[in-house]
């Protein structure tokens, strides 16, 4: 599996899509999480949430749900709704395995969130597909610049990082 490099403009595109989703779905926050539990981008408005833990647990839930689907002979479940007393979560898988997450409360409804997420999945999917094409070609100046910078890290610098 290839490493994923997100540039400032990539994060901006994702954040824009998540911000629109959050606004249209009347949610509290929206996130994009990679299948390995790492937060790729968020819509903002999540200052009081532990997004690192949230991302890891969302990926774990979605992975378990995917395996449950296989047991039932399903290709996958398109969405997962977790209902709380005040806060609710809706999770949906984007093409390629990333997970779209919307946190919402009584100010919205499952129907509205599900409807808006369906539309957002296409947009986010297209953005991620653009990244994949660019990274496969290896010609994008941004990723190449990032890769060069990381390739220049010396063994000594790694030792220094870990000696503290």
């Amino acid at each position, binding site marked *: *599996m*290839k*490493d*994923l*490099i*997100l*540039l*400032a403009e*990539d*994060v*901006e595109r994702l954040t824009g899509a998540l911000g629109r989703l959050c606004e249209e779905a009347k949610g509290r926050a929206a996130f994009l999480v*990679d*299948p*390995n*539990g*790492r937060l*790729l981008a968020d819509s903002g408005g999540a200052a009081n949430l*532990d997004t*690192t*833990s949230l991302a*890891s*647990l969302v990926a*774990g839930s979605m*992975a*378990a749900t995917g*395996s449950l689907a296989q047991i039932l002979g399903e290709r996958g479940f398109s969405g997962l709704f977790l209902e709380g007393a005040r806060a609710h979560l809706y999770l949906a898988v984007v093409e390629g395995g990333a997970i779209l997450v919307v946190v919402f409360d009584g100010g919205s409804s499952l129907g509205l969130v599900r409807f808006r997420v369906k539309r957002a999945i296409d947009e986010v999917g297209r953005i991620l597909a653009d990244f994949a094409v660019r990274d496969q070609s290896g010609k994008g100046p*941004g990723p190449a610049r*990032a*890769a*060069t*910078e*990381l*390739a*220049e*890290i010396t*063994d000594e*610098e*790694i*030792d220094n*990082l*870990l000696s*503290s």
Partner: protein
Amino acid sequence: MSFINYAAREINCKLVYYGPGLCGKTTNLQQIYSRVDPAAKGKLISLATESERTLFFDFLPLDLGTIRGFKTRFHLYTVPGQVFYDASRKLILKGADGVVFVADSQVERMEANIESLENLGENLVEQGHGLTTLPHIIQYNKRDLPNVVPVADLQSTLNEHNTPWFEASAAQGIGVFETLKGAAKLILTDLKNKMAR
């Protein structure tokens, strides 16, 4: 699969602690959590049974510091060691940048070590990896107990790929950070080499 957020200048890596049941994987994470500066760690999440056996995974996010202006963030996971939780192990192993195999040094656990190591190899192959290509390290844990196998024997039985190894008594915190640093070094060196290609 490492995730590099160039906008936030962050390198995110996933390190998985693997090994037979009760070998000390969760103990490693608990020791790291208890000894690391609060600013450098997130919450330790344990999805465990009532008897404190790992049911799905433990998770600990850790900041190791900055290199060339990049924050290096490691996500540490453990897998459930019990044989029948293989489906969960496969899920956790996906996308790992490196593995720590925690072996239980006690004589009576040698068979369990071998079985778990074989299981790791099989699960990695299923995911298009293998122990020859994925950075991994071995920790010989529980060295403080009386009935342990000599390290030379553990080496000849478990370290086929001649990978770096450390002795540890995780319950006392001994060897825990050496193992973590050893694994982090392998992962970062691997990442740097991949970027140079």
